[in-house]
């Protein structure tokens, strides 16, 4: 008898665990994430945006909208991740060379390396990180980007679902002359000015809320009314009972 109940206990325990195990597995390969893109510290870009990345196994779908960027110039955009990175957007304190701007390398400790290049066509691997002819050129300062079925490794898919990857949109016009120029060369490619590759917008891809909300205390639910009714009815019945006793007493006395 005791063995039976013990076994039943184990079976029950296992059964209780199964859904969680299932959820764990599903989560590893699947999930919706969202990043609100905000201006990178020190770089002074008056732009904003949102990126949404949906992970289906090793496939990710990306949509991104941003506005306020330098119009009609290529804006390299990537998903960054580094196992050793802080999984966040760079802060003013990351300005290692003290020039009051953050370049892409200085952001590395915050967001890691490029793991996906958000190009409009062709390759999306880190190799296309500076493929300036294939990035959105932000007509009117706006990027409206959609690209589906981008292949990523297990590790990158996991990092995105876990909220450890960061979307970065590059390209800053510090001197506000409408183009990328200046004597400072890019830390990524000396053929480009640093304006072309410095990070403009950044946002951590965080997991979307899981499940619904607990937004009610039941004060107007039917069951509440039923209970009141039941209780009230019970009290009234009791009153009839005691009333009868009282009446009998009065009658007896009379």
């Amino acid at each position: 008898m005791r063995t039976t109940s013990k076994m039943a206990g184990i079976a029950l325990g296992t059964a209780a665990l199964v859904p969680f195990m299932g959820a764990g597995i599903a989560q590893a390969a699947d999930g919706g994430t969202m990043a609100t893109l905000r201006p990178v510290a020190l770089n002074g870009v008056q732009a904003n945006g949102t990126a949404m990345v949906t992970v289906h196994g090793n496939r990710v779908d990306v949509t991104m909208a941003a506005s306020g960027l330098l119009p009609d110039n290529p804006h390299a955009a990537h998903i960054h991740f580094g196992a050793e990175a802080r999984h966040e957007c760079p802060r003013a304190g990351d300005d290692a060379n003290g020039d009051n701007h953050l370049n892409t390398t200085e952001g590395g400790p915050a967001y890691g390396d490029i793991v996906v290049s958000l190009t409009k066509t062709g390759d999306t691997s880190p190799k296309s990180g500076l493929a300036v002819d294939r990035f959105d050129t932000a007509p009117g300062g706006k990027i409206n980007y959609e690209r589906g079925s981008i292949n990523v490794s297990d590790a990158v898919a996991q990092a995105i679902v876990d909220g450890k990857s960061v979307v970065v949109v590059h390209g800053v016009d510090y001197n506000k002359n409408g183009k990328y120029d200046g004597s400072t060369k890019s830390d990524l490619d000396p053929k480009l000015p640093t304006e072309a590759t410095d990070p403009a917008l950044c946002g951590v891809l965080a997991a979307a809320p899981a499940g619904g909300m607990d937004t009610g205390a039941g004060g107007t639910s039917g069951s509440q009314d039923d209970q009141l009714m039941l209780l009230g009815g019970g009290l009234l019945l009791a009153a009839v009972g005691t009333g009868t006793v009282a009446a009998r007493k009065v009658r007896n006395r009379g």
Partner: protein
Amino acid sequence: MLPIRRSGDHRGHLVMVVTVLLALAGCALVLRAFTTPGEPPQPNAAETSAPAHASETAPDPSTTTHLKPTAAKGGSSFGPILQPSPPVALAIPSIGVRTRGIVDLHLDPHGKLEAPTNFDRAGWYADGPTPGEFGPAVIGAHVDSKSGPAVFYRLGSLQKGAAVDVTRKDGSTARFVIDRVARYSKKDFPTAAVYGDTKGRAELRLITCGGAFDRASGHYVDNIVAFAHLTG
């Protein structure tokens, strides 16, 4: 004889007092059951029969057809989008909602969106897009407190096409229009449909509770979700 009689009198009085008290309390409770507002309105059942579970687990078919796997789409398919600014007030004239002082909501340790602690306040998911930005901005509020209706008591009766105005901190008003209202089991909540990609539109989700109230857990078993998009 006399002392006994007196004690009998006392007992008779006591029984009568108890009778009156019981009757009064009973009437009060029954009256209350009748006068408390009825159950909150629930959205059309047709909407709720949608296979919520499938949309969460299986890849959304509209995604695969909408997105070309090899090339990004041009910008023209995106709808109007506003600069970010947090919400400060919400008005839904068709169901009499007019609330100010929207509180910030965050995720709890289980990744679930917390509800406002105040039954008289709506809250918005402050780590997501602001209402009017690209993506799904989320505003949640209670359907009821322990004693009566709360901010989103009538959300379930919201109709497609109804206007929702969100006043934002920068003074602007983001006007949304309702696309649909649905009820989902919390057990089978379609996370992707509610919080996922909005395909180039600035959208809004209004969330409250619905369905049966589970007295054991102290929570309703369903959520009512209104889907809206930015107009203009």
